[in-house]
């Protein structure tokens, strides 16, 4: 094969073709960003009895309403729901954000802090959710009445999960530090076994604590129901920052859909409907109702998709805790974690500004 001379016409054409996009971007003429073929949202899910994948939380409502899928369909974008297991939501979602296989995720506060601290760029798009309570369980025959009685004892807690933060607040509120207790890093199933057999003195977890009470192997001595709303575990809608920048109109559709879901949840029969979804996804009705019984935070307030000062304080405190607990290496500036413009637009569009007027 004879070699092509350096500046033959073919070469020049190829070079210019290669340089054209660069020239265009320099001059600011940007080709319109083509829409992606699919928009992917990750949400916690379980396999239902007939093999269908059923989602938990407000994602179930958004999926059911079908509005988002229809709107995206009009633009030629497919809506894809990506299931994640309850057991390892944080790792699966963060890994999925890292390898660009999802654009949005509904998951917890601490994992989002960890993700951003490690260099991933995600932002909070729609705050608010059912907010999980946390519980402190001790063996049924234990004499401990409060966390203070557990000084120096062994407490089972799964490190790195979002409820580590409420636990730290509980300790701090009682004048204790992590050094005052012995933390056993066990996943929830192992932790439950440990407290059932009495080999751990306490177990800190979500509403699966009720299961231990029902089996009469444990008793709940503290719950976050009466604690400030701040202490509850938050699971909200986060989006990949790059996606938010490139396709704001799609992000707006997603935000509007979730705000609509929140609206229906606080509306008539909303709570009943929500419970129905949770039960369909595998939770027992009794458990779901006990989770909210006697809770100080009102139903409406949980679902308020507002970027209040309390929200910002929650995340700032969370980031500070994460750094102090050496879950993250560098301090995280939480002020750039928020993308409130989508919710503001959604509320204006749906004329819901007064539904969650700040107190």
């Amino acid at each position: 094969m004879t070699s092509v001379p350096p500046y033959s016409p073919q070469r020049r054409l190829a070079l210019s073709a290669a340089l054209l996009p660069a020239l265009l971007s320099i001059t600011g003429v940007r080709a319109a960003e083509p829409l992606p073929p699919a928009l992917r949202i990750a949400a916690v899910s379980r396999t239902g009895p007939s093999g269908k994948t059923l989602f938990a939380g407000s994602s179930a409502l958004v999926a059911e309403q079908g509005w988002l899928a229809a709107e995206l369909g009009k633009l030629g974008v497919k809506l894809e729901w990506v299931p994640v297991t309850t057991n390892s939501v944080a790792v699966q979602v963060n890994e999925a954000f890292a390898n660009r296989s999802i654009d949005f995720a509904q998951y917890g506060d601490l994992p989002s802090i960890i993700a951003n601290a490690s260099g991933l760029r995600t932002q909070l798009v729609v705050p608010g959710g059912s907010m999980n309570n946390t519980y402190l369980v001790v063996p049924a025959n234990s004499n401990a009445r409060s966390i203070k009685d557990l000084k120096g004892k062994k407490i089972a807690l799964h490190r790195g999960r979002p409820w580590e933060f409420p636990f730290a607040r509980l300790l701090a509120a009682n004048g204790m530090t992590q050094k005052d207790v012995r933390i056993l890093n066990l996943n929830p199933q192992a932790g439950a076994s440990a407290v059932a057999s009495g080999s751990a003195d306490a177990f800190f977890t979500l509403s699966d604590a009720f299961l231990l009470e029902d089996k009469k192997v444990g008793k709940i001595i503290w719950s976050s129901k009466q604690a400030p709303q701040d202490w509850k575990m938050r699971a909200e809608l986060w989006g990949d920052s790059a996606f938010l920048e490139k396709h704001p109109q799609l992000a707006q559709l997603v935000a509007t859909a979730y705000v609509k879901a929140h609206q229906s949840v606080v509306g008539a029969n909303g709570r009943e409907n929500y419970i129905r979804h949770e039960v369909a996804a595998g939770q027992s009705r009794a458990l779901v109702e006990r989770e909210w019984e006697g809770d100080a935070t009102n139903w409406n307030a949980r679902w308020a998709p507002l970027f209040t000062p309390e929200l910002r304080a929650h995340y700032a405190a969370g980031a500070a805790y994460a750094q102090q607990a050496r879950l993250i290496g560098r301090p995280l500036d939480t002020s750039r974690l928020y993308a409130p413009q989508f919710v503001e637009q959604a509320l204006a569009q749906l004329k819901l500004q007064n539904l969650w007027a700040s107190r």
Partner: protein
Amino acid sequence: MKSLANGAGALLRGLLLPALLLLAWQWASGRGASAAYVFVPLEQLWTGAGQLIADGTLALHVGASLERALTGLVCGALLGVATGTLMAQSRVAERLIGPLYHSIRQVPLLGLVPLIALWAGSGEFAKLLIIGIAAFYPTVLNTFEGMRQVDLRYREVGAMLTLTRGQMFRRVLLPAALPAIITGVTHAQVFAWLACLGGELLFAAAPGIGSLLLVSEQTGRMDVVLLSVLVISLLALALNLGFTRAARLLVRGRSA
């Protein structure tokens, strides 16, 4: 006649220990709530089992797991046979692939899960990938050694008959190495089943017996947990027996 009685006698004797264990189990489950948490009473296990079978849950999950495991096994084993053959035929391939194979083999598969999750996501593909890798290792090794140990005399005969490389492979090497390959696949099946289980426990939610185990743990249905564990063991046993029998049938009549 005598061997039939012996066979029946052996079976009865074999059932004694499980019966004793079940009795011990029932006794343990009566020892208070804490014990009953894990030593679920037998009646509860029985009704739980009935429920699972009746509403089709068990069939659904078992079917999904078997499909996943066998798909991964087939892919991994085929790739393993291909690689093993390549390594046996070409010293260059062996020198290049061998060290990589031996070093990665030492890492427990579960340790590779985070890496696979990052590079291949957490979905069905990742699970099949991990099953494929688990099946790949034993198959490669057995194929390679099987091919290598083909009696030199056979190869000389082949050379004498001036067979082409392809004919040599098809007519001489492959049949002679087949017993080793089949042994490899049998080993691979064991690891593939374990990897399938691990994948279902560690990757995203989807139908499967491992997922059933996980979900029932989370919802505190200890009876379903125990039943899942039992089903997993029985399936493993069945697969193992099935493959060993099939292997014996295929290899019967060949002189080792």
